[in-house]
């Protein structure tokens, strides 16, 4: 029986990494928010790998934090090992990755949610999205209860019509045996939303006591841990870290897989969904890279209070009996006991072309979505979309202009633009190579790039914002000082340069010039920089990067300026492409289907040529002239 339960501003469907950020953002912006989950115990669950961050994903976590999100703070509270990856490479590709205590991570997030004002948590399966005209009005849950909402954010992850496969054994559940959501898909279809079927997988978990670590390579964390969150004091997180372990598959492992490949649902045709190329199952790796004699397997703890170990690199959907054989053929795993089997999961998600870059549905006003439901993969990608969807749902209810992050402002912008504009046939994973302006989008300057947006929407407080402005000012002043402070060929300077294998000076140069030499940096030249002010570590880092890579950075800034011009040229919502006869047919169809918001977005649609864009500009100008 239907009944009206209670009214809210924003309803969030799902309590995974996207749902948590969405609900927190909306509630913190002062809106009455309700978050639905099929199980309150599964809030911020990490059903796959036990880590947060990694290359390019670490950037996303930093950006979420800069906007006022929770993921960075939460992992800083619950990590058990941390590493800065790519340290020997340029600053743009440095990336933080931490091993999480999964249980703790989930518990901490739940605590934060439970103690957030304006936020209600509700254990229920949402079965219907209610709407009037093309406007969302609320949600209905399995009991028949109706919750009127002004905006709804869908973060259903991998739960929609989910099924898990392990060989020919199929279970109709979400991840970890949790209840799947089977009814919502139909409701979405009725709203005119197009669904796709994606697939992903996870490896087995092994009992720690049955692993021989003595034959594996130990992988330790960094000596000095760097926090994810800009608000975390790094002194407070220098903990005793746990190790991960590295071992390898071998030819015997590969033989076992090849002999049984016909029993894998991927190859037998049982799985229809498209899997991610980034996280290939071990059977995929063996088939596609048959010349490789071994593959790495990282053994990672799932937490401090459990014996379960995650076998990173060996996800699989082979039947249980093959899994035993396969895992036990790996060095150090000869006596492995499997606590949880590896499995593949298939689920409904949307074609994200139906979304605006604000993550609002083009066809349903007030309906937003984020996370794996949008065809992405990964906790961090989910959180990044979650916070954007949550912020925009709140802004929508407040009647304010929605927030956009473009490709030049953050990896979040790249992620969302790729999803809503480009062809995507697999769960989308963030990669540094996807970002054309990555020299500007570093993990170290996420606060400088995005904190202002967080402040404007109301997630960053005045105090934090003032601190940011002060930081900006100090960086600017110090860079200017170094560019204008000259040093001559004095003996002290020459000796210093000799000591550092650097060419002696012939004429006076600025300190900045010296910093730009490959063998020197801001830190090293301190000795000859007598008037250096005392500055915080993070400010020094910015100063060094800005000076050292100034040439490359200014080139990218020029590219960004060019890019911004086209982003600013808005295309009216109701633009009728059929009227522009000079557009080639293919371009006309693609543009009409995708309804890009700007000339910039239009130019990134595959099948739309530069000439088509010129034609569009001329047509739009003509329209303007007629007004």
């Amino acid at each position, binding site marked *: 029986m239907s009944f009206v339960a209670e009214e809210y501003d924003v309803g969030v469907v799902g309590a995974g990494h996207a749902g948590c950020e969405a609900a927190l953002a909306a509630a913190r912006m002062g809106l009455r928010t309700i978050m639905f989950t099929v199980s309150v115990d599964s809030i911020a669950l990490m059903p796959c790998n036990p880590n947060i961050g990694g290359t390019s994903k670490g950037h996303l976590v930093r950006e979420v934090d800069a906007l006022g999100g929770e993921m960075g703070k939460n992992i800083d509270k619950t990590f058990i090992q941390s590493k800065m990856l790519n340290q020997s490479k340029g600053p743009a*590709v440095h990336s933080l990755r931490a091993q999480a205590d999964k249980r703790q991570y989930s518990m901490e997030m739940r605590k934060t949610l439970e103690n957030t004002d304006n936020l209600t948590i509700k254990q229920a399966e949402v079965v219907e999205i209610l709407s009037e005209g093309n406007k969302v009005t609320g949600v209905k849950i399995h009991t028949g209860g109706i919750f009127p909402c002004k905006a709804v954010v869908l973060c259903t992850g991998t739960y929609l019509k989910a099924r898990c496969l392990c060989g020919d054994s199929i279970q109709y559940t979400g991840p970890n045996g949790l209840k799947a959501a089977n009814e919502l898909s139909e409701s979405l279809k009725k709203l005119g939303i197009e669904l796709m079927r994606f697939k992903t997988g996870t490896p087995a978990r092994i009992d720690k006591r049955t692993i021989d670590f003595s034959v594996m390579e130990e992988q330790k964390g960094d000596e000095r841990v760097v926090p994810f969150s800009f608000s975390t004091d790094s002194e407070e997180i220098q903990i005793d870290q746990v190790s991960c372990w590295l071992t390898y598959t071998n030819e015997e492992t590969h033989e076992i897989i090849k002999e049984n490949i016909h029993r894998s649902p991927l190859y037998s045709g049982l799985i229809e969904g498209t899997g991610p*190329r980034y996280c*290939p199952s071990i059977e995929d790796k063996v088939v596609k890279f048959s010349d490789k004699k071994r*593959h790495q397997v990282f053994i990672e703890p799932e937490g401090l209070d459990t014996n379960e170990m995650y076998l990173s690199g060996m996800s699989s959907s082979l039947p249980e009996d093959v899994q035993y054989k396969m895992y036990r053929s790996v060095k150090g795993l000869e006596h492995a006991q499997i606590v949880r089997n590896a499995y593949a999961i298939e689920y409904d998600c949307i074609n994200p072309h139906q979304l605006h870059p604000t993550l609002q549905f083009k066809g349903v006003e007030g309906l937003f979505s984020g996370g794996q439901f949008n065809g992405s993969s990964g906790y961090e990608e989910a959180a990044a979309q979650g916070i954007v969807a949550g912020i925009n749902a709140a802004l929508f209810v407040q009647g304010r202009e929605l927030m956009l992050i473009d490709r030049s402002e953050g990896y979040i912008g790249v992620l969302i633009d790729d999803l809503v504009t480009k062809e995507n046939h697999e769960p989308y994973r963030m990669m540094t*190579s996807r970002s054309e302006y990555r020299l500007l989008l570093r993990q170290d300057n996420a606060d400088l790039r995005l904190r202002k947006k967080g402040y404007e929407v109301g997630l960053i407080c005045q105090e934090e914002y003032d601190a940011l402005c002060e930081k900006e000012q100090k960086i600017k002043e110090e860079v200017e000082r170094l560019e204008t402070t000259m040093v001559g060929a004095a003996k002290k300077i020459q000796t210093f340069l000799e000591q550092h294998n650097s060419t002696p000076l012939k004429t006076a140069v600025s300190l900045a010039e010296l910093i730009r030499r*490959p063998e020197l940096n801001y830190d090293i030249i301190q000795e000859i920089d007598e008037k250096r002010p005392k500055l915080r570590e993070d400010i020094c880092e910015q100063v060094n990067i800005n000076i050292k890579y100034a040439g490359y950075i200014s080139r990218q800034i020029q590219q960004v300026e060019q890019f911004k011009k086209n982003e600013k040229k808005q295309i009216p919502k109701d633009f009728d492409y059929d009227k522009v006869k000079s557009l080639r047919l293919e371009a006309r169809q693609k543009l009409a289907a995708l309804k890009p918001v700007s000339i910039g977005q239009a130019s990134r649609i595959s099948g739309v040529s530069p000439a088509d864009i*010129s*034609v569009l500009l001329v*047509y739009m*100008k003509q329209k303007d002239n007629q007004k």
Partner: protein
Amino acid sequence: MEQDTIAAIATALNHSGISIVRISGEKALEVAGRIFFNQKREKILKQPKSHTVHYGYIYDGQDLIDEVLVVYMKAPRSYTAEDVVEVDCHGGLKVTERVLQTVLKNGARLAEPGEFTKRAFLNGRIDLTEAEAVMDLIQSKNEFSMKNSLNQMQGSIRKKIEQVRARLLHEIAYLEAALDDPEHYELVGYGEQLDQKLDCFLQEGKKILKNSKNGALLKDGICTVIVGKPNVGKSSILNLLVGKERAIVTEIEGTTRDILEEQVVLHDIVLRIIDTAGIRETEDRVEKIGVERSKKSVEEAQLVLFVLDWSKPLTKEDREIFKLIQNQKKKAVILLNKTDLETEHPLKEEEVRNEFKFPVLSFSAKEEQGTEELAAYIRDAFFEGDLHTEEEIYLTNLRQQQLVEEAISSMELVKQSIAQGMPEDFYTIDLTRAYEALGRMIGEEVDDDVVDEIFRAFCMGK
């Protein structure tokens, strides 16, 4: 609207005497100022008034390109309603293209098809009630240039570019894979390896560029020189091939003679006859510099028309000219000229052929005889024989030349980054630019190539 400065040849690409290079945009004057000088090599365009004409020379660095008239039109009183500089060039199509190239090197971008008109419209200069016309123009010009480039892009050059591109892509993908998955792929020592590979790519790129500049046979014609001692009739042969009127048109007093050339159509074959000034000089003044002069022009030529006087016996000078053609290993044909003259001891075709080992054709400039045979010979020598086997690369399109240049300079920047010890992720910036430039040459979209190649070639992820 769009702020960058564009340039292109604004007149039709035919054989008219004067062609115009148009530069439009904020920096039009600045760009022109960098390359336009008076006789004393002083800058002329300091603060010109709008709608004034200036006389001077276009220089590419130290090289004199052409003697020109420059017209300056200040915004908004110009075709595009932006600052416009137009350069009136007199030296023929080839020279005009060099002027354009010089303009592009000095800060302008090559205009897209229909872009001047587009700007004129967007800036409200042309008040078109029928903007459709502009849009159709853009599409049709675009299709035309696409078709044109595709026609040129068949066969060996396309394959070469695809090869270099594929190898570049592989390097980019390897770098990206290693940056994305540092626990699987190492970059230790990679810089040195890449540096060596780049040398090899650069060599390929430069070869394409050189061939495109030297051997753009199909569109620009075969670079041809007419040689022979004084008074064998080179001048009348030139006039016959060119047509008398055209020969006069290009005789502009004070124009540097070294670069004068004529484009002629001989039946269905396009010839570019170089050093026409030299021919006239030696004929007119009966100077003794005939051999010296010939030497230089033969070096540049792809085809040599070696003229002998049918009515006179061979001399030492004829033999010297023969030797220099032979030493340069050029394709040559001997024109036994003046067969219209009555003489008792004419040169015999067979004797000449035996001594000089080149094909010999009887010719009479006066009677206009022999041109068909000459055309037939060239057709054989260039378009059925060597043309295909040598795999010469034809890149006539300036846009494509510019793209190869962009690819080359981007690869050089990568080498610079390697030499300076920059971190590896910096390499990808310019590698990607080189890859994109080559992609635009063959009309391919870039988009997700890198990501696809990463997954295809490297086993990624945990």
